[in-house]
Every structure is written in C-alpha cells, then in structure tokens.
C-alpha cells in the first residue's frame, strides 16, 4: 500500500533547486500554475517547455524517477482528455453512432493532457527538491500574514509536522494489523467493493483506538516540553534568504512577464 507514489516525495540530491529557500519554490509553483492558464499559442508553449526542461535539468532528479511515480495519475489525465475528444463541438472527422471525434476535440484533448502533465511535473518538482519539513516551514512563513486575520498558522504548521512524523507510523501499524488479521483468516483481497469495505472494519477499529492513544500520549509529551498552542515559537533553523533566492525570484518573475507579454502581443 502507498508504496509506488512519488508525488510529494523528496528526492535527496545536491542541486541549486534543493538549496533554494522553500518560499521561493512555493512562489515558483504558484507562478507555474498561473502560467499553465496563460499558456496558449506556440511561443508561450515553447517558453514554458524550455523553462520546465531547464528546471528539470538543474534539479538533478532523474526524469525517469519523476515520471515513474506519476503513472496512476497519468491514467486520470488520459481519461479526462479522452472525454474532451468526444464532447467538444467542431468539424466532425470520424463518427460512430452517438460518438463524434472532431478536429477541435483532438486539439483540446492534446492541449489539456499537456497542461495537466506540465502542472503535475512542475509542482512535483517542488516537492521532489524540498524536504516535507522544509516545505512546512516555507508554508507557515509564507502564510504568516494570515495570522493577523486570526488564522492559526503556527498551529497548522505544527499539525503538519506531526502528520509527517506519524503517517509512516500509522501506515506501518495498518500493515501490522492487516497481517495479524490475515493470520486469523481475514481476507482483504477478494470480493467486490462492498465486501472489501466491510472487511476493512475490523482493521479500522484497532487502528483508531491506537491512533487516539498515540494522540493522547503525544499531547502530554508536548505539554511536558512546554508547548502551548498559539504561543510565539522560535526556530532551530529559521528560514533566511540568500543571494541565490533573490536571483531565483527574478528569473521566475521574468518568466511570468514573458508569458504575459506573449499573451498580450502575440
């Protein structure tokens, strides 16, 4: 379970992207998502492709590794674009019963597949080069202005940190309980969807019990180490911008400006 997903997984390497401040990368991911929508026409598409390839190369993450984990997501992308082929009005190329394939439909489907592919690759480039803890730091610092609106940003960051720590533990525990139940004849693999779901019940009960026990223990341990929610905390490794971060910001903004100019003038 959950083994073959590289989306959101960190790939350790020594590259410029890895050492960039997470806030820069978050900003970059945001710009990338915007640029996906700005992308129309050949030149903007070429610019975005060039930029993405540049990032992939300097990230030092093998492209095959990036794509391997995206297989399951690619299936969704393909299904979505297939719908586009059939349901876009335009000049009919092939007709089979109620289904029509149109020229616009094909173009739309291809564009959509490319957009989604770029979106996924671009954002996973961020998670592949940033440790989850670093990402949490970046998020909480980027969102800290929201604290004025009484959004409990530090608490949310704490929750994310704890989730990162305990998700692997709970997954391992799930596997353990599954094996224990299987040894007593439980069956998680056969039967229809409903039967499978029913079989999960004896798995979930002990899992919840244990999760609540852990939560209880952890809350006590955190309190014993002087945690109280909403209090101002300092950091062992506070985020600090370096020169390279400024340069990265400039490059990202130049890219965005280029796309906008193309959108206006081409």
């Amino acid at each position, binding site marked *: 379970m959950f083994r073959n997903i590289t989306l959101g997984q960190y790939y350790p390497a020594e590259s410029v992207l890895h050492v960039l401040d997470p806030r820069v990368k978050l900003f970059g991911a945001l710009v990338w998502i915007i640029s996906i929508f700005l992308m129309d026409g050949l030149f903007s598409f070429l610019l975005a492709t060039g930029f993405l390839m540049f990032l992939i190369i300097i990230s030092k993450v093998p492209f095959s590794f990036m794509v391997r984990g995206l297989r399951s997501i690619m299936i969704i992308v393909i299904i979505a674009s297939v719908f586009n082929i059939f349901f876009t009005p335009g000049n009919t190329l092939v007709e089979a019963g109620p289904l029509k394939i149109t020229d616009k439909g094909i173009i739309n489907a291809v564009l959509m597949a490319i957009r989604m592919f770029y979106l996924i690759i671009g954002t996973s480039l961020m998670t592949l080069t940033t440790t989850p*803890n670093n990402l949490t730091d970046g998020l909480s610092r980027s969102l800290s202005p929201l604290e004025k609106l009484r959004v409990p940003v530090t608490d949310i960051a704490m929750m994310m940190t704890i989730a990162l*720590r305990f998700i692997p533990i709970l997954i391992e525990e799930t596997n353990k309980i599954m094996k224990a139940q299987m040894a007593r004849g439980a069956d998680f693999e056969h039967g229809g969807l409903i039967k499978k779901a029913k079989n999960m019940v004896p798995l979930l009960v002990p899992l919840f019990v244990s999760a609540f026990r852990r939560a209880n223990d952890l809350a*006590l*341990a955190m309190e*014993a180490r002087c945690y109280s929610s909403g209090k101002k905390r*300092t950091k*062992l490794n506070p985020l600090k911008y370096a020169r390279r971060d400024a340069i990265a910001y400039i490059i990202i903004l130049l890219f965005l400006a280029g796309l906008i100019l193309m959108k206006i003038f081409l």
Partner: protein
Amino acid sequence: MKELARKRDEDLIIKGRGLTTEYFRRDDEGNVESIDTALDHIDISIIKGRFIGIIGHNGCGKSTLAKNINALITPSEGSLTVCGMDVYDEESRMKIRSMAGMVFQNPDNQIVSSIVEEDCAFGPENLGIPSQEIRERVDRALSSVGMFEKRRNSPEHLSGGQKQRVAVAGVLSMEPECIIFDESTAMLDPEGRQDVLNLAHELNEKKGVTVLWITHYMEELTGADHIFVMDNGRIVMEGAPREIFARDEELVQHGLTLPGITLLSRLLKENGIPLRGVSLSVDELYEELMALW
C-alpha cells in the same frame, strides 16, 4: 532519613507535603460517580543531584506523582515545590516543566518531528530561545546522549533505545535540573533497557542532573541513591537500596518481587553460607563468594 533531616531546604529540589491527587470519575450526565485517590497525602523530599528510584505495582500512583512534579496536573490538596517554585503558580508552570523534564514510556509517541535535531529543538523553540542558542544546546544535548551523528536522520529508522536517547536529548536541550524517567525502559529490549539506564546514571554523575527513575523492576534500582516504594497512592517504604532490598517480606506485600540475584544471595544465606547481607549485583555476590572460598 537522618541525612535528610540534616539537609537544609535549599538543597531540596522537590518538596511535597500532604500532596494529594484525586481523579473524578463522571457518569454520562457529568455527575461525579466515584473519586479515585491516586495520591494520598504524600510527603516527599528529594535532594538535588541524587539518583532517586520510585517503584510500585500497576496503578499505585507513580505516573500521577511524576505529572504533579512536571506541573502537568495541579494537586487537589497539599503543597509541592519544584526547584523552589510553587506548582500552584500559573506563571512558573512553563519554567517548572523546563526544569523538571520528563521522558515517557513509549519511544514513538513522544518524538514530535521527523528529523532528530528538530525534535531535540522542540523544547527550546517553545521557550522562545534565540536560534543561535538553540543550535548550541541541541548540539550539546545530542552529543551527550551519543546521537550527534544521527542528527539529520529520521527517528523512524532508529532502535527503541536510540529513540529514547533522542527523547532524553529533547529534555536535556531545555537544560533541566531534574529528569523524570516514567518507565522509560518498559518497551525496550534488555539491551536498550540497560543502555538508557546507563545513560541516566551518566547524566546524573557527570552533569549532576537529579534523576527520578520510575520503574516496575527492582533490579533497575540497585545503583540508586534512595528508593521510594509506593502502594495505593502512598509512599510505604523509603531508604537506600540495600535497606529496602533487605525487607523482602514487606516488598512482596506491596506486590513487588526481588531481583533474582538478591533472592539467590538470600537463599544462600538461609542455607548456611555466611554472607554479610543482601547482594545487589552479580559482581557483588561473586566477590563475597570468592572471599569465602
């Protein structure tokens, strides 16, 4: 006890008088169904820099005592001062928690972060200590528990004993005067158990940290300076290990069993081998036997 009487109050790191904790058990409507007296008018004095053992069978109130000392719960009755601070004082609560750190039983459920050094920094971060100083404290704490090399690792891949070392470092980084180990070895294998116990002794001897070692196992207390035996929310016996271990009938009454080696030395003595007293360790018994040879 005589020694205690001689000590002045400022040498006491923990001083409780008539300390009582009651847990209220409520029914569904919130009415009090029954009252569970977990601590029953306890008087306790602990001298700075000692290695103190606290032992008793399940549910006798050991953890409740520890939580009182750590200011995690407020006493229902009686007085308690920790490092000269009153536990009833809201203001000093955080200070007390940093001065009397606590290491819990389950190694997994007390590590907060998925990076060792960040977990170790959790306490100082909560105390609002400047980053530079946190760095120094974390490095120092991890070195003194021998986990400095693993500082960038995830705790997931550490052994139980190593996780407990990380937990100890997380307490040490708050620079406490006292560390309470609440059955911190109960979930470890024998090797990890000995490992954490040795670490506690080392911190006690080299750094002068007062240690409160809470346990079920008599054999973990042979190296303690002073032992408190608890039963039913009361302290029923106290004294040096040798005195306590010699009172085996009383111990059995309170639901405890003597360590194997002490039992052996007692049996030998009863069967006519002229040993001087109870032995606390294999080495000690060996020496005595060799002396008789």
